[in-house]
């Protein structure tokens, strides 16, 4: 009755339609209570943990040891002695850097009036269009969905999925992220949204507010996720369009998302109590 070509075309159209409907449904219910993501997270994350630790160790050895030892080759007699001292000195340097970082984190932790958990970053999102990280703390450490994640420099994101020992954090630069924010100087309110690049945009700031490049953006606390007053970033660029009610503001976050190694999860601010 129908030609083979017609059947094939109809078949493809049906397949595409089913595919789109499926994606449409799954995009609405991304993290369900018993999502398979948790299973995959628990399977993959331990390997990510080991690989990340190995990479960091190798990087440290490369950065602090081999470069310096190669310089010591000029003098064979001093080579061993120098190498040993350099290694020691690098160990101290690494300890000092780590100490500074942790002290910074500790001071910050003291200033925040809520329970916190320190976690290490062990993995990142495989897609360049989405920005999430995996941390090595999960339900067994009291971490739950919706908890804010910060570092001393500023806001990092919030927990979107948790396994027993690992969690996934949605970064504020992800396109699905939105944080209620204030411009520190004039208290103008807006929403910081990610655009999946290294920047964010500040939306819905009414044009009557005077905003300047370099103005600091902080959390407002109105979203019920992040405590009030945490720094997010600073204004990088303001585009003035002739029409429209709002400013178009580009923000550079204070957190360097490419270099984050440890984060703090704020436990008391969870939405899912």
């Amino acid at each position, binding site marked *: 009755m129908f030609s083979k070509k017609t059947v094939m075309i109809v078949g493809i159209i049906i397949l595409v339609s089913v595919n789109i409907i499926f*994606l449409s449904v799954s995009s609405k219910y991304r993290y369900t209570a018993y999502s398979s993501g948790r299973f*995959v997270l628990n399977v*993959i994350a331990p390997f990510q943990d080991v*690989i990340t630790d190995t990479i960091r160790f190798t990087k440290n050895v490369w950065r602090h040891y081999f470069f310096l030892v190669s310089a010591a080759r000029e003098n064979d007699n001093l080579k061993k002695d120098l190498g040993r001292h350099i290694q020691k000195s690098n160990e101290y340097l690494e300890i000092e850097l780590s100490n500074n970082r942790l002290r910074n984190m500790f001071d910050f932790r003291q200033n925040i009036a809520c329970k916190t958990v320190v976690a290490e970053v062990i993995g990142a999102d*495989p897609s360049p269009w989405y920005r999430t990280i995996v941390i090595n703390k999960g339900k067994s450490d009291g971490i739950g969905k919706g908890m804010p994640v910060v570092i001393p420099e500023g806001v990092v994101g919030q927990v979107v999925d948790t396994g027993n020992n690992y969690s996934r954090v949605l970064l504020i630069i992800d396109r699905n992220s939105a944080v209620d924010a204030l411009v520190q100087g004039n208290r103008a309110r807006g929403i910081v949204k990610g655009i999946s690049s290294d920047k964010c*945009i500040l939306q819905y700031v009414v044009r009557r507010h005077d905003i300047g490049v370099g103005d600091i953006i902080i959390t407002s606390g109105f979203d019920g996720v992040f405590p009030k007053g945490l720094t997010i970033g600073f204004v990088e660029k303001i585009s003035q369009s002739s029409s429209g009610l709002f400013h178009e503001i580009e923000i550079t976050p204070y957190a360097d998302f490419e270099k984050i190694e440890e984060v703090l999860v704020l436990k008391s601010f969870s939405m899912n109590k």
Partner: protein
Amino acid sequence: MNYLLYFFLCLVLILIQTTVIHNLPLFKGFYDLLIVVVIFLGLYRNLRESISVILFAGFMMDNLYNGPFGLYLTVYLWLYACIRWSSVYFNVRSILFLAFIVPAGVLFENIIFLGSFAMFNSGSFHPSGIYGVVAKQIIWAMITGPVLIMLLNFSHSIWSRWFNMHVAGQKEQ
């Protein structure tokens, strides 16, 4: 054993993508390495073997990224179908075809992703970075894609030879 080999390969590539590449500034913005596996399966392996590996790879990726579940599965399955279809009309073993098909696969994945942003309107969308991300991925795919496919093919032939000689041979004895 082939299934195990490819499942393991997919796991290794996923781990590389989520940990190693993010620590190497040179490779920032590298393309999805599983595209190479999908293309290799489409060109050189049978349907039954390929589909199970693709379903596994898609399922794992869908659970590790932050977008709608099923998007990676969609990309891999349709890409696989396109590769099978194109093998009817083109000489798929030629270097020229390999040099073209991997960037095309990368472009296809990005189009599906960008299409999903537009269609499902999930989250904000800023077009400024799109061209840079896609162009970088395509250039990487052009440079490394054909080499990786040939490397996979070569590794598979060595694996088959080793397997037939040591494991299958011992069973016969």
